């Protein structure tokens, strides 16, 4: 018996070693082949081109740039644009998804029917087609001269949505966002640490009063000198100047991703809401909670815990879906890489950067969501959809 077992072990090890070496040989063969075909066409490889200036322009950037900027900076801008698009799209999709999930589980038959119609329409048409559709709608809006305006400060035209912003430096905005996030993470930790004692509530209250004051102070210190407090958009020549702008390419994609993702997330939320045991809700009633509180304290938290893994999947999917930005001319990471390939010819390197970029984004989403899941999970309580 022992020798047979030993034999099988040996066989397994030999088998695995053979498979491993075959795979390694294949990979090496591919590398050699690539090398040979590159040499045959006298193409050079390497990442040196990243420091060269691009000489071409693109439509949207979160950072200031010019056509004499390097490829590395251009690619970084593409990466940030993708992040922005993904962030806006996913946030909106989540909001829509929660609403749709609620509507679909509503007792009102008309509501749940409308919810179903919504889900079926937006889930069953390819996202790329929806993006093209919304883009053609958004660009049909009036020209800047006859833009729709709200109190002469927010303007909507075929060139995008313009709204006023504070005249403050970029770094301070980042700092403020960081502060808010830190505070929001600090609170639960503190609550856990101090075990709901009365001094915790005191700290919480002081914090909520101090936070806005600190934010205002930062904003005041970071003001651009010699400018009015508000940067208002105003029509100058062919287009608006000043203010903050949401270009139509970005709006169309955000709308498309939000509506499409909303349909999917709506289904996930619905599954979650329906998975909440009736007993829990009845217990809430018995304890005299209002319907709103039953929803916000019992149903939603339980539902979200139940569907967090499915939700993570949807987020990763939506993030990947941002690559269709190219069909409406939004300069996301894929479009920047695609143009760079054509203008510089460094195909292999640029595609490696593209893949690396998406791996980083998707792994981060998975990491963050998995950690949240681990923190709040209730064991054995999970549904898949």
């Amino acid at each position, binding site marked *: 018996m022992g020798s047979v077992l030993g034999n099988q072990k040996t066989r397994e090890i030999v088998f695995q070693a053979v498979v491993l070496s075959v795979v390694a040989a294949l*990979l090496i063969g591919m*590398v050699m082949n*690539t*090398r040979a075909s*590159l*040499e*045959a*066409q*006298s*193409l*050079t*490889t390497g990442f040196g*081109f990243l420091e060269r200036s691009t*000489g*071409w*322009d*693109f*439509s949207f950037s979160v950072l200031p740039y*010019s*056509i004499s900027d390097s490829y590395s900076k251009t690619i970084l801008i593409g990466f940030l644009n993708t992040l922005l698009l993904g962030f806006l799209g996913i946030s909106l999709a989540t909001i829509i998804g929660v609403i749709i999930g609620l509507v679909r589980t509503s007792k009102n038959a008309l509501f749940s029917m409308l919810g179903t119609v919504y889900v079926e329409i937006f889930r069953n048409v390819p996202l790329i087609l929806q993006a093209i559709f919304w883009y*053609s709608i958004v*660009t*049909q809006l009036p*020209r800047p001269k006859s833009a729709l305006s709200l109190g002469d400060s927010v303007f909507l035209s*075929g*060139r995008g949505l313009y709204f006023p912003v504070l005249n403050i430096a970029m770094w301070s905005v980042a700092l403020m966002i960081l502060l808010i996030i830190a505070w929001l993470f600090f609170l639960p930790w503190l609550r856990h640490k101090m075990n709901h004692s009365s001094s915790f509530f005191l700290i919480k209250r002081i914090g909520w009063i101090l936070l806005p004051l600190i934010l205002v102070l930062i904003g005041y210190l970071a003001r651009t000198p010699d400018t009015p407090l508000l940067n208002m958009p105003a029509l*100058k*020549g*062919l*287009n608006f*100047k000043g203010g903050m702008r949401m270009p*139509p390419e970005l709006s169309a994609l955000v709308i498309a991703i939000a509506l499409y993702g909303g349909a999917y997330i709506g289904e996930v939320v619905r599954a979650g809401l329906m998975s909440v045991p009736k007993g829990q809700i009845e217990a809430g009633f018995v304890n005299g909670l209002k319907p709103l509180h039953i929803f916000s304290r019992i149903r939603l938290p339980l539902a979200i815990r139940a569907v967090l*893994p499915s939700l*993570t*999947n949807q987020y*990763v999917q939506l993030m990947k879906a941002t690559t269709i930005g*190219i*069909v*409406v*001319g939004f300069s996301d990471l894929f*479009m920047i890489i*695609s*143009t760079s*390939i*054509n*203008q*510089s*010819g460094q*195909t*292999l390197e640029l595609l*490696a950067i593209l*893949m*690396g970029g998406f*791996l980083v984004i*998707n*792994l981060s989403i*998975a990491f963050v*969501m*998995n950690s949240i899941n681990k923190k709040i999970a209730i064991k054995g309580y999970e549904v*898949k959809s």
Partner: protein
Amino acid sequence: MSVINNRLIPTVVAGCFAALSLVSTSASAENGDTLKAVNDRGSLLCSGHNGSFPPFVQVTDDNEWSGYDIDYCRALAVAIFGSDDNLKVVPISWAQRFPSLQSGDIDVVIKATGWTMGRDTELGIQFSVPYFVGATNVMMPKELGSTSPETLEGGSLCANAGTSTERLAANFFKSRGIEIEMITFEKSEETRDAYFAGRCDSLVGWGPNLAVTRQSAENPDDHAMMDVALALEPESAAMRQGDDNWVDIVNWMFAATWIAEANGITSANVDEHKANPADSTVEKLLGVSPGIGERLGLSDDWAYNVIKQVGNSAEIFDRNIGGESVYKLDRGLNALWSDGGVIVPMILD
């Protein structure tokens, strides 16, 4: 269910980059033999478009490729095989022209491709003699009031992604200190629709294509060309570097259509000219006296076949762009030098 395995993937990424560093090469030219590959395959792979780019590449009502560039693809197929049945037009986007050429998906790019130094040196590409020149220009609505570049200050411009016009326009407006927002699209149709939808104040385009785009507007008179042209761009066929014979074939294919026009040889009268050649150039061109084929590795009657089946350069222009087409554009600079154009046929000896 964990979505993605967190630890394994960075290893793969690191592996990929390591592999990339392994494949770095030093430049060394090697003669590829495209003609042999084309003959072995039995077909010529020429560039098409993922949609249409009238009047150079478009799809007719009965699902056939047509256009000025497509006719030159046909001429090349005829020169090699004696018939354009062996032509395969591969649909590719603007941005995929050169990667497809590098990877061998196509043998030649004849697709309104401008000859730029970057492409010539960095992309591993070799160009033929220019076969068409066209001005890169900017179209804008007349309602803007003026057609000077300064009118567009603060406005926006639509362009095709990954084209030479994209770079030309960026540079043109930057050098004049005019701030302009450039929006680029993957497909020509998207670019054009964005302009007509009013997304952009102006459309940068090239040569006859811009003129055709203007004609397709609901009211062509509403649109005007900017009073300064960005550049006069020479268009050439693009091929992989390092195959001199292949470049020769493409060059002389163009030349044959020009020489035929210069000598008044058309697809209708080519047989008469072959029977009674006027001079030794015509004799050589039509293969009456040997030499034109052998030196390129083709048959001696290749030029005769091209003229017989596709026509001379004047016929190709008239059919697709000029009087016989729906666009009816002037030939202008693209006429032979003897008619006031810039096309100069090489010498056939």
